[in-house]
């Protein structure tokens, strides 16, 4: 059963990340996942210092709060004219540094960092079972990520046109009366929810990787948003399957193999994409000559 649950969890993370990743890549904010993975640190430290416990629900709530704060600050700085990469950099390094300072001041002797407290590990998901009245309901991670995916697809599905317009042409969107800022914040809220719940279930590298790489792969393959989202999810899910297979063969880290598989798919798309692939372009040039 362990294989089934690991793959299902991987597929759910890939789907959440695949959908949101597309919008982030289009808005040149792909590194936001990495940013959140660092900036939740002070949230965890403060929650620990206030409560003295490492209860995972509490930690996740604190992380979510700081995830939202991160995305909010990034969005705010960006709207006041700072480049998006710079505003991501400013916010997450500053927040992470606050976390490091807090640990060195108040909690030197304790294992206190995202790795020890927040980040889950995809290898263990199937042991972390949710029991309801003594009935085995399956891994907690599957429920958490399933709910997250449901929320993401509902929100994106309901406001698909608005999100699309805001991603490609925010000026036009504003001109025809779409509340652009609201949708940006909404998207960022979804991103921090998805990343924090995925961190808690499967760890950081898998989330950051699946948020960026499959969306970039899809970006190389199509110019249409709907297709790009579909391809992004497909590439993400395929990466989790290929990666898991590789992890079985190599007896290696599961999350690591999944991200490597995603990178491999990206390279293939980079070389052989019908529209952007460099090999295909070469062949086309040769035919012309």
């Amino acid at each position, binding site marked *: *059963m*362990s*294989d*089934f649950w*690991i*793959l*299902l969890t991987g*597929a759910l993370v890939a*789907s959440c990340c695949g959908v949101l990743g597309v919008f982030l890549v289009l808005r040149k904010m792909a590194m936001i996942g990495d940013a959140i993975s660092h900036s939740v640190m002070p949230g965890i430290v403060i929650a620990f210092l206030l409560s*003295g416990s*490492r209860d*995972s629900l509490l930690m996740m709530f604190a992380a979510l709060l700081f995830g939202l704060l991160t995305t909010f600050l990034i969005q705010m700085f960006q709207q006041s004219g700072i480049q998006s990469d710079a505003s991501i950099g400013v916010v997450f390094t500053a927040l992470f540094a606050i976390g*490091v300072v807090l*640990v*060195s001041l*108040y*909690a*030197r*002797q*304790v*294992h*206190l*960092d995202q*790795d*020890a*407290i*927040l*980040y*889950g*590990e995809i*290898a*263990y998901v199937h*042991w*972390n*079972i949710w029991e309801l009245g003594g009935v085995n309901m399956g891994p907690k991670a599957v429920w958490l990520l399933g709910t997250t995916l449901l929320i993401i*697809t509902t929100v994106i599905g309901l406001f*698909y*046109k608005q999100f*699309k317009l805001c991603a490609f042409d925010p000026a036009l969107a504003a001109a025809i009366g779409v509340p652009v800022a609201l949708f940006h914040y909404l998207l960022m809220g979804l991103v921090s929810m998805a990343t924090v719940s995925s961190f808690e279930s499967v760890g950081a590298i898998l989330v950051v990787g699946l948020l960026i790489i499959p969306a970039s792969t899809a970006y190389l393959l199509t110019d*249409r*948003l*709907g*297709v790009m*989202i*579909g*391809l992004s*999810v*497909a590439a993400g*899910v395929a990466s989790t*399957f290929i990666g*898991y297979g590789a*992890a*079985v063969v*190599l*007896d*290696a*880290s*599961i999350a*690591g*193999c999944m991200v490597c598989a995603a990178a491999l798919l990206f390279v293939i798309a980079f070389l052989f994409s019908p529209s952007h692939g460099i090999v295909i372009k070469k062949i086309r040039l040769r035919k012309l000559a």
Partner: protein
Amino acid sequence: MGKMYKSNSALRRFIMTIIFLTVTAVATTACGQNAADGENGKLKITATTGMIADVAQQVGGDYAEVSGLMGAGIDPHLYKASQGDVKKLDDADIIFYNGLHLEGKMAEMFEALEKRKPTVAVSQNLTEEQLHSAPGQGAGMHDPHIWFNVKLWISATEVIRDTLAEKDASHADYYKDNAAAYIKQLEELDAYAKEQIATIPEASRILVTAHDAFGYFGEAYGLTVTGLQGMNTMSEYGSKDVSKLRDYLVEKKVKAVFIESSVPKKSIESVIEGARQLGHEVKIGGELFSDAMGDAGTVEGTYIGMVKHNVDTIVAALK
């Protein structure tokens, strides 16, 4: 608008296809798996650290097949599970772990596993008085490096003995005999450590290492222990820590400091350099095993060999 509608339904089709593919693919992989594997009558035991695996093998003897998750030189705080490790945990009849947050977030998983198979923290019988609390922290935060006080490790051995005897009652006497023999060796080891450390002149009984893993060791055998890093190998040491430790070395005329098998030695080297500039020569007394044992098959690859190595290294350098 028509175009947008079109891509919207394309999106829906895509998502449906993906859900379908996922379900079928997952179902096929899941069916291919077979839980049953070779029953040779041996208890399958999986332990997190090498130290625990060693004890489990000593007690389990011919009736136990022990596999450890963290190999030689692996820092438990930085351990990442591989796919094979998942299998080891899945197949195990009994799981032993250290507890006291040594395994970080893995502990949550062990608590969940407890409902399904014997999953036991070897530190479970230790009392509040025997444990060190991490200074400045609330209750419940303890130093997890219990294996450095051989007395505490005897308690861990008893936990392992009782678990095996309960789970495999038909061989209970065998496990008890093995454990008794091993505990006798541990008691000799404890006496050996006390006796050896006592040969160091009292003023020189100062143990300086890269991270605070030796608290129990110092308390049990009468050494003052100072570390550069906090207990957590991840926490960063401040510049003040470096200069404080340097001044301490100079003031107490400490002869040697020690590096650790699972912690990079760069940090401790900077302290030595600092002391040298103040005119006090400190040498590296040798490498101690802290969070992990030596390679399997060597003397240091066993718990007893590892403790002996540490004691001998410390005595040779400080005497």
